[in-house]
């Protein structure tokens, strides 16, 4: 009763439910497939966008990191093992992390991860390599310093050569093995290369030192012992060096002897000056030298000094004796005075105190001239005027004051005297202003009529007619007065202002005339003279 129908209902109803379930499941699968397809498209798009943008940023990061590392490596201590690690963790990793933040999809992140991983690996290798290279360079520099010191030591003390060679092995091996950044390959290369180079350098320095000490050293024995460090052509060089050294030694010996002799000569000359300074004084009343008795014994000591110039002591003694027996008044020899004046500024053979003494002893310069020029020599010893400007200036002054006409016989004694007097007057004033710092810039400008030298030259200038008359007159020319043997030819022509200078005062450089009292005054020494040139004692 209905059993089969009910069973049929059950089977059919179950089948319907199954059909519905299959439909729902199938719908879900289709939706899932759609989601996957759409998602794949979106993922592809976003991945492409991320990678495209990230490629450019990655290039920038690589460039920046390389630059930063290069800067870091430049300033880094090559022996600091933390430099590379510090850069990787504190500079590179933050940059790579930030770089990866810009990637949103799984595949773009994988790409970024692969990029950063590869670059991290590259930078790890690069920094390690760079630090190793830097460490190698540092080791090389340190080795060079060590080798230089050892080479220097071996050159100055060749007996230390064997010790130096052992020190090289020990030092280079120690530097390489203790360097924390040096990799094994670089270390081995540095060790092998530097050791041989260092030993060669030290051996060569030592051999050079040996040759310097003894040019006749046995080079064959050296080659046998240290042949692995010296090439054949270098041995030839050493042989030539030995020959050259022998010549140099001989030359040096000669130079040393010359230097010693020159030093001794200078010492003798200085001693002579000291003897004059110490034992000679000038009597302000008579302008005559006052000589202490020790002068002569001291002068004899000069003769005993090694390499004392020939005749130096004799000059001192002759001069002293001459002063003691001097009679009458000596008038300057213009030629001798001019020579002494010219040579005041000679850079090679300047006028010395001894030259003045010789001239005075020979009766060629007066006591007054001796004193004036001696003071000038002393001034010039303190502040030499020997530059090219001075040479040119003195030559120009000489041309301006002394007449010399080639082809016409004559002699300008007045000009020569004026030239000497001018120099004795002008130079002290010039040096005084120079010391005081008040020297005008145009002081030596002869073309400027307001310059110091032009103003000083003014009193010594003569008319053209006077110059020619003085010149030809000295040679006995027509209408010329013969030049006295011991007097300046134009004693009336020297003028101070509008007052003619007496003949006796022609040798005084700087004169001043008091018209009210009719007295002359030597501005240099302060001595007072009457109208005829006779000294007035206070």
């Amino acid at each position, binding site marked *: *009763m*209905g*059993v*089969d129908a*009910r*069973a049929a*209902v*059950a*089977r059919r*109803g*179950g*089948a*319907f*439910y*199954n059909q*519905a*379930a*299959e*439909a*729902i*499941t199938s*719908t*879900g*699968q289709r*939706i*899932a*497939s*759609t*989601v*996957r397809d*759409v*998602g*794949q498209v*979106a*993922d592809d798009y*976003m*991945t492409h966008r991320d990678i495209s943008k990230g490629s450019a940023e990655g290039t920038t990061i690589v460039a920046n990191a390389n630059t930063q590392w290069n800067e870091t490596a430049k300033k880094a201590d090559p022996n600091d093992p933390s430099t590379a690690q510090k850069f990787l963790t504190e500079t590179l990793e933050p940059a790579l992390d930030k770089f990866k933040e810009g*990637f*949103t*999809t*799984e*595949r*773009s*992140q994988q790409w970024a991860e692969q990029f950063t991983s590869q670059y991290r690996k590259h930078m790890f290798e690069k920094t390690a390599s760079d630090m190793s290279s830097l460490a190698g360079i540092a080791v090389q520099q340190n080795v060079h310093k060590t080798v230089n010191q050892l080479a220097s030591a071996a050159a100055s003390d060749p007996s230390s050569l064997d010790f130096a060679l052992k020190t090289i092995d020990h030092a280079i091996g120690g530097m390489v093995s203790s360097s924390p950044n040096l990799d094994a390959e670089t270390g081995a290369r540095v060790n092998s290369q530097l050791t041989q180079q260092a030993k060669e350098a030290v051996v060569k320095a030592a051999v050079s030192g040996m040759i310097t000490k003894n040019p006749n050293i046995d080079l064959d024995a050296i080659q046998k012992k240290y042949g692995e460090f010296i090439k054949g052509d270098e041995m030839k060089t050493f042989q030539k060096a030995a020959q050259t050294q022998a010549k140099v030694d001989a030359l040096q010996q000669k130079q040393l002897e010359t230097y010693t002799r020159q030093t001794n000569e200078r010492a003798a000359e200085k001693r002579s000056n000291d003897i004059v300074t110490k034992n000679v004084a000038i009597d302000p009343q008579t302008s005559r030298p006052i000589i202490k008795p020790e002068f002569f014994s001291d002068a004899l000591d000069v003769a005993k000094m090694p390499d004392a110039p020939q005749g130096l002591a004799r000059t001192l003694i002759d001069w002293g004796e001459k002063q003691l027996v001097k009679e009458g008044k000596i008038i300057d020899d213009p030629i001798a005075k001019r020579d002494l004046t010219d040579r005041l500024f000679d850079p090679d053979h300047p006028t010395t105190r001894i030259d003045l003494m010789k001239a005075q002893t020979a009766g060629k310069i007066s006591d007054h001239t001796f004193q004036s020029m001696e003071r000038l020599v002393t001034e010039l010893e303190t502040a030499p005027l020997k530059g090219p400007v001075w040479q040119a200036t003195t030559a120009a002054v000489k041309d301006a004051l002394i007449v010399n006409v080639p082809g016409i016989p004559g002699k300008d004694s007045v000009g020569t005297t004026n030239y000497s007097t001018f120099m004795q007057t002008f130079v002290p004033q010039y040096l005084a202003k120079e010391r005081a710092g008040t020297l005008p810039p145009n002081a030596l400008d002869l073309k400027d009529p307001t310059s110091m030298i032009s103003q000083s030259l003014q009193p010594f200038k003569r008319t053209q007619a006077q110059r020619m008359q003085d010149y030809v007159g000295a040679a006995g020319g027509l209408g010329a007065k013969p030049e006295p043997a011991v007097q300046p030819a134009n004693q009336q022509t020297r003028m101070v202002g509008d007052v003619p200078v007496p003949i006796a005062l022609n040798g005084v450089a700087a004169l001043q005339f008091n018209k009210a009292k009719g007295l002359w005054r030597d501005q240099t020494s302060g001595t007072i003279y009457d109208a005829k040139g006779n000294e007035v004692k206070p």
Partner: protein
Amino acid sequence: MAFGSSTFTDAAGAVSDLFAAEGHRYKAKGDLFEAENYDRASALATQNEQFTEQSTAIKQQQLDRQNYKVLGGQQADIAGAGFAASGSALDLMAESAQQGALQKAVGAEQGLITEAGYKEQAESYTTMSKAAHMAADAENFAALGADITGGIKGAAAIATLFI
């Protein structure tokens, strides 16, 4: 992990699983529907068995009554004809009694056979109902599993957006 193919694979998996769960639930409903109807079929078979038993008993009584009527009629006929209840009359009555007994036995046997058929049918549908229940339970469990996996995949898809 980030936004990418796995995001959409997970999302698609979640959608697929959630729909599959719904499918499993429909299948479970179908199984329960089948079980319910098998139960009803089984009940009907049982009811038929009982009806058959009652029907057979009634038929047995009807046959007993018919046999009594035949034998009673024969006794009456014999007696009415004046025959003694002996000899052939007894043979005839014995044969009739045997015939009646045979029919009753056959009827009883047929009733038992029919009852047994219904009983077998009822047990069969009961077994099928149990199987359908078991299938429904399995489908419900599968639906629960698909819900869970769908949820996990959905969560994974969302998670890819943040990690």
